[in-house]
């Protein structure tokens, strides 16, 4: 995918980062723009747009910062500090949208962009069959929001980050890994939004991700196995890497996963040992199993089989040529489609602390909120933005508008979508003790789902056999195949809120040209009965 910017991959999936923006010095990553200057630019564009006949205009003055530190073994492969700075102007003229963007940060520059957006809108209006209808978004005045970070990761010296990653690699190698790669991705979006509705929002959004992969090799057999880190990207500052005991989750078999803080070295040591153990682990026998899924795994299943199919633009057909459409059509919702068992509740939430999707206001000035998507198993709602709300009978947007950059036009993106914990007390140990013939899965492995989000296949990082209530041994070559409503219908138990934590996708791709976004998905450990497990081992002869 020639998808620009970050890309490397994907329609409605998870992509790999590539080049972005302008390279800058690390010290420039901690500076911010003057709010009054941003307002002056925005007002210049709003005035020009109104003068050009716009019935609505919004302006986004954006400074998007990214830092990545990439290492393998004892080597720093790359350190990239990048900035993308500019202004995007979106207007409605004669009932049609127009958008233009510029990196010319002068009143004249943004005025030209506003005129260009108006001209494009006017041209589009000639072919438009139905005028844009915007759900009301009350004027917010001048407001601000910032991710409540304790330590701005951009301000942490590169040397400290390099030292951490090289220590992670060294610890993994000392514990038996042949190779170790570790990375830090940091994002800071300094976004200013202004609209003709009387809303001015200045936001400072931070995200962090610290993934690693270790590899163990058996040269004699030619076999190799990897284990990725079990942490999650978060909407947090560098404090995420300051591990706290209360953020550790220890499974009944001793596998440790993490919540709102992360011990990367501890995880790397465990990963090295487990990668080596995987080399000799027995291959799963294909068949029906009861699955016990750790939240480090479930987040991606939620993302693919719940988050994406409930994007209203997909449901309506706007993504048909790329990511696809959705099985969860509006008529099915109206008919009371059971999306899962009665235990299953999915909530969309742009306010969840520490999440990747947390914001104060979305990219069209709508206040962040929380709402039900699936209630007691039944499909009840979708994700909307202002020009879609009326289609599903709503009189307000859900605040799901997002643009990956000032130069991209905003569109509907997934909010955090999470599986609610069980209401009755249930620990993971109790859940496992009730499983006769099961597989316990951790981590994100391979993932693939069809263009209407019915048929999916998921692998993982670690798999354990459960026999008669006991975790007996590690397994390998495991993947499960599922059909979305049946899979969630097979959800027979969900642990309580003590076990609830978030996973997330840092680079979720959607749209043409593709834009990335970041989103979290929380869950507690959950059980799914009678799921089809396949064996993925093959021989090349």
């Amino acid at each position, binding site marked *: 995918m020639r998808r620009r910017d970050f890309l490397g991959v994907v329609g409605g999936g998870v992509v790999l980062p590539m080049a972005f923006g302008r390279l800058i010095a690390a010290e420039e990553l901690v500076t911010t723009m003057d709010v009054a200057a941003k307002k002056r630019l925005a007002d210049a564009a709003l005035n020009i747009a109104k003068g050009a006949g716009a019935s609505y205009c919004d302006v986004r003055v954006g400074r998007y910062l990214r830092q990545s530190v990439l290492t393998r073994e004892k080597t720093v*492969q790359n350190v990239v500090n990048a900035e993308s700075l500019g202004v995007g102007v979106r207007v409605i003229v004669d009932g049609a949208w127009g*958008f233009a963007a510029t990196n010319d940060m002068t009143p004249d520059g943004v005025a030209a962009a506003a005129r260009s957006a108006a001209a494009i809108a006017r041209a589009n209006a000639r072919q438009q069959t139905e005028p844009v209808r915007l759900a009301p978004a009350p004027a917010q005045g001048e407001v601000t929001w910032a991710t409540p970070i304790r330590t701005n990761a951009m301000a942490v010296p590169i040397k400290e980050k390099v030292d951490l990653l090289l220590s992670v690699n060294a610890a993994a190698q000392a514990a038996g890994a042949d190779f170790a790669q570790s990375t830090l991705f940091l994002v800071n979006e300094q976004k200013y939004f202004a609209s003709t509705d009387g809303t001015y929002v200045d936001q400072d959004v931070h995200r962090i991700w610290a993934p690693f992969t270790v590899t163990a090799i058996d040269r004699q057999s030619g076999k190799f196995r990897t284990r990725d880190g079990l942490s999650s990207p978060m909407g947090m500052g560098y404090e995420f890497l300051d591990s706290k005991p209360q953020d550790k989750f220890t499974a009944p078999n001793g596998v440790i996963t993490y919540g709102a803080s992360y011990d990367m070295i501890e995880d790397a040591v465990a990963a090295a040992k487990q990668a080596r153990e995987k080399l000799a682990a027995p291959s799963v026998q294909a068949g029906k199993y009861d699955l016990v899924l750790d939240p480090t795994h479930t987040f991606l299943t939620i993302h693919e089989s719940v988050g994406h199919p409930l994007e209203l633009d997909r449901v309506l057909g*706007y993504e048909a040529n790329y990511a696809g459409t959705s099985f969860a059509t509006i008529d099915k919702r109206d008919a009371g489609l059971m999306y899962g068992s009665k235990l299953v509740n999915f909530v969309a939430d742009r306010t969840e602390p520490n999440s990747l999707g947390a914001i104060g206001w979305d990219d069209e000035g709508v206040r962040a909120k929380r709402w039900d998507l699936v209630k007691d198993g039944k499909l009840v709602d979708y994700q909307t933005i202002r020009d879609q709300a009326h289609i599903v009978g709503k009189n307000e947007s859900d605040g799901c508008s997002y643009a990956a950059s000032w130069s991209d036009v905003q569109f509907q993106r997934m909010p955090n979508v999470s599986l609610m914990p069980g209401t009755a007390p249930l620990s993971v140990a109790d859940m496992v003790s009730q499983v006769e013939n099961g597989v316990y899965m951790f981590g994100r492995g391979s993932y*693939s789902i069809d263009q*209407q989000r019915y*048929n999916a296949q998921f692998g993982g990082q670690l798999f354990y056999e459960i026999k008669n209530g006991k975790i007996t041994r590690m397994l390998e070559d495991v993947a499960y195949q599922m059909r979305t409503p049946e899979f969630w219908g097979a959800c027979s138990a969900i642990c309580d809120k003590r076990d609830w934590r978030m996973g997330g996708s840092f680079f979720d791709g959607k749209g043409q040209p593709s834009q990335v976004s970041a989103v979290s998905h929380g869950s507690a450990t959950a059980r799914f009965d009678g799921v089809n497990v396949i064996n993925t081992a*093959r021989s090349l*002869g």
Partner: protein
Amino acid sequence: MAFPTQDQVKAILEKVVKLSKADECTAVMAGSTDGNIRFALNNVSTSGIVNDTELAVTVAYGKRVGSATINAFDDASLARVVKRAEELAMLAPENPEFVPAVAKQAYRASPTFDAATAAITPDLRADVAAKSIAACKAEKLIAAGFLSDTSNFSATANSNGNYGYQTATRANYTCTVRTTDGRGSGWVGKDVQDVTQLNADTEVRVAMRKAAASAEARALEPGKYTVILEPAAAAGLVSFMIRFFDARQADEGRSFLSKKGGGNKLGEQVYDPRVTMIADPWNPEAAVMPWDNTGLARERQALVQDGKIANLNYSRFWAQKTGKTAVGQPGNLLMMGGTKSTADLVRTTERGILVTRTWYIRMVDPQTVLLTGLTRDGTFYIENGEIKYPLKNFRFNESPVIMLNNIDELGRPVRVASDESSLVMMIPPMKLRDFTFTSLSDAV
């Protein structure tokens, strides 16, 4: 927006290289005009044009490297970007895998540019969308599609006296056509360098026929089947596999091209003898730049010759370490085939499944390059040389390594793009035995 002329670009790059006081300096300048139009539900949804020209400067002091970029090209800006790169290099840790800038290369120009594509106007894009939509509306079908085009230049220079400049164009059109009841879906994709080779009015009819013909899909039990993968369907699997032709990964024992006991499979028979895959920047149907992103000159080279691994991709560091010669990383992939079209292959098939397109392909096991993914937008059952009826989509779990050992016949390669690869590819339609479908999908 007009690009700077070649002379202007050369002057800027020479100035930058001269300005640097570092041990070595590489300057790369690239500019592009990227246009697109997107349509869905028989309406244009978005369209846009992005112009961008950027200069990247990389300098080294010993094994310390720094890079900086800028998009202004006056003397003060050039001095600033060089200074910034030098400051960053002095602060950078030593890179134990540092390799010096490439020596002076002899670039042989490749035919990557077509004036018609560089001259695309918003009207032409709108016309492509309008033709696609009009044809579908007339048949009560629903079109969703995307046209993207680029016209760009790349130039590179360094303190070893290396210099290269070349322009390129590319346009890509895709259209998904669905029936109004949502029970049928068809797709077409066309990747060209010269936009005059794109006729949306003709192309869209392929997707329309498939949409209409796929509405009454029947379920077939998953299992191993003879399949005909159209070039676009095969490209997704083949290009995924090619990512793992890295020599270092193979030597390190973590690739399907690693050998038991150590070393790599260079020279070994890994595929059916009919499999030959070549990288060739000068191929007139799939030309790419004659240098890679390190400035190293590309060469015409076979990756697979008669089923044997003929070359692996060596980074400059790994080549130096292992005593090999590095050449530019491939920018295209030309898989050899026969002379038959997809339709010809169908005519000679007793029983099999025709696959239009593959989707959401992901690695299941890197040890064997086992991939999973789905068929999409036109899957049909073939009997006695004819398409008999549409099939419900399948999920596959298949390794391209195994697949390319189960060849019945290869057809005539055509130029295709893949959703998830930047390679320009020539891929034949393939008739393959025992392709593994593991489940059915209800998705249309």
